[in-house]
């Protein structure tokens, strides 16, 4: 197993390096001269050259990349062209908001998805299955950000049940913080709940018709034990993979959700920086998001070895 974990660690590191090279080259490929942009359109050539030297743009691309990565590792992503504040500070302010939103949404997705998935698998061909499947079909087909807009209009503005926008840190005001994040997390989690539901349902259906489930029933085990102890336990292995793969979509969804609910998260920072062509910020944000994606997927793989005993020996599921 140690070999497998080491192998995965090495693979992830390689992926991260490749991704960072793509980000770095991609940003260099952007139109316009960052030095010119920073110094201002009317600056004289000498000033521009000075800015260029300050930014290190006069050095070879390899040296630039190594310097950039060296700084990035210690959390230094340079300064924002637009505001002049260090990018790391901007990340520090926005990242926690998005992480809280993502975790909350994923929890909702898992609870809702697992529950409806199990119901659909257990009550096959009867009304609870139709209801659960209808829910996932709805959540997968309807644009959830549109639901978010309507939810703001009806649940927040007209009925006043939820705040329409804004963010309160759950660390300062735990209850209010959670309350403020509930509607956004629900909207963000809905699509993912549907994906988890479908995956849970199909793998539960498959598990429940497996030979070892029949053997368990032949032992005289009750229905609940068969469904939860054996069926759900085996299905969790597949669901875990899906949760890892869902993260990409979750991050994309977070950008829209933050926009609708005016949350000061990394999604808002991303959009602002794209529309103002704030290159150091774009570079940092993209790098942080891809790194997060890679690291979380690595963690999911490690989690696998805990859930699936087969992984502990061979390093792969047959």
């Amino acid at each position, binding site marked *: 197993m140690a070999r497998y974990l080491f192998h995965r660690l090495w*693979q992830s590191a*390689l*992926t*991260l390096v*490749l*991704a960072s090279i*793509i980000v770095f080259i*991609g940003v260099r*490929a*952007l*139109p316009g001269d960052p030095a010119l942009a920073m110094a201002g359109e009317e600056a004289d050539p000498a000033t521009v050259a000075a800015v260029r030297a300050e930014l290190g743009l006069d050095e070879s691309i390899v040296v630039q990349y190594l310097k950039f990565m060296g700084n990035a590792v210690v959390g230094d992503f340079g300064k924002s062209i637009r505001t002049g504040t260090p990018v790391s500070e901007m990340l520090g302010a926005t990242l926690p908001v998005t992480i809280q939103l993502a975790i909350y949404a994923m929890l909702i997705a898992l609870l809702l998805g697992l529950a409806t998935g199990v119901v659909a698998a257990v009550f096959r061909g009867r009304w609870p299955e139709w209801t659960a499947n209808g829910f996932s*079909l709805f959540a*997968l*087909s*309807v*644009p959830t*950000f*549109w639901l978010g*807009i*309507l939810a703001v*209009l009806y649940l927040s*503005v007209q009925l006043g049940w939820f705040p329409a926008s804004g963010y309160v840190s759950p660390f300062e005001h735990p209850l209010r913080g959670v309350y403020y994040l509930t509607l956004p997390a629900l909207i963000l989690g809905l699509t993912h709940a549907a994906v988890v539901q479908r995956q849970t349902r199909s793998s539960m259906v498959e598990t429940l018709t497996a030979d070892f489930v029949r053997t368990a029933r032949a032992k005289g085990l009750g229905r609940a034990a068969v469904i939860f102890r054996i069926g759900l336990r085996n299905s969790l292995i597949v669901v875990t993979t899906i949760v890892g*793969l869902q993260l*990409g*979509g979750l*991050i*994309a969804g977070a*950008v*829209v959700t933050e*926009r*609708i609910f005016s949350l000061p998260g990394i999604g808002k920072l*991303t*959009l602002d920086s*794209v*529309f103002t*062509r704030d290159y150091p910020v*774009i570079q940092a944000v*993209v790098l942080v*998001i*891809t790194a997060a*994606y*890679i690291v979380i997927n690595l963690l999911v793989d490690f989690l696998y070895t805990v859930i699936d005993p087969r992984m502990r020996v061979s390093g792969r599921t047959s």
Partner: protein
Amino acid sequence: MTAVDPVAPVALGRVRGRVLRKLWHNPLGVVGGVLLLIVIVAGVFAPWLAPYPPSQVHFTTPFQQPFTVGFALGTDDLGRDVLSRVLHGTRASLEVGVLSVLLAVVVGVPLGLLAGYWRWLDAVVSRLADVMLAFPFLIVAVGLAAINGGGIGNAAIALGIANIPTMIRVVRAETLRLKESDFVLAAHTMDAGAGRILGGHVLPNALSAIIVQATVIMPSAVLGEAILSFLGLGIQPPDPSLGIMLSDAQQYLFRTVWPGVFPGIAIALICLGFNLFGDALRDALDPKTSHREGR
């Protein structure tokens, strides 16, 4: 001579006939198919079906309610006909969907075949897929928008790239499975080359998995296009897009909600059509169910 076989052959139609028959007997699949048909007709014939050009403004009649004379679904803040814009928006959504599916198929299928067939290529292609997966489609779109500005091509490329890795994985897994099958082993003993095995045996058998994956990509691309255009990273105004319509409608939601309702419903219907039809197709193509019948 065959009559003495104890397992009598179950009379079954051809593979294709059986799939179609199974689809036809699945009510949800039929509903999905009909929805798709409506959506595709609406999209393809939008220029002829729409009563007005999508960007034509009628300054004298903004914020018309639905079902007013001349404007079946009402007008928006600039007096543009919502029905015409929904029809053209549907067309744009389908364009992005089809383009991104094509991109995912054209790049993903060959890479998946190669990675599944040759072990030494697998490491390279899998790493490539991992790197691509690490960039969520929105991030790719952000990058592309920063370079090119938005646009329909931008959205299609971003969504296509985002779906290439899963297509690679699906085709690779199928290739790995089929490569070990006895019929490929038999082809090897007949001295069939890699081209004949991949093109003649593996690809035709992997086709159903590819089609199913395409029906998964389509609705997610349609939703993705809406999100990108909503954020200003996809199709740019004044070109009609369902996402832009939602974004515009959000500005004056307190005056009238209708210009935001119809594009939302349109997106939902497109996705519902693909999801329902895709599910039914998957069930119909499922080798497990057909295998059981075959015995």
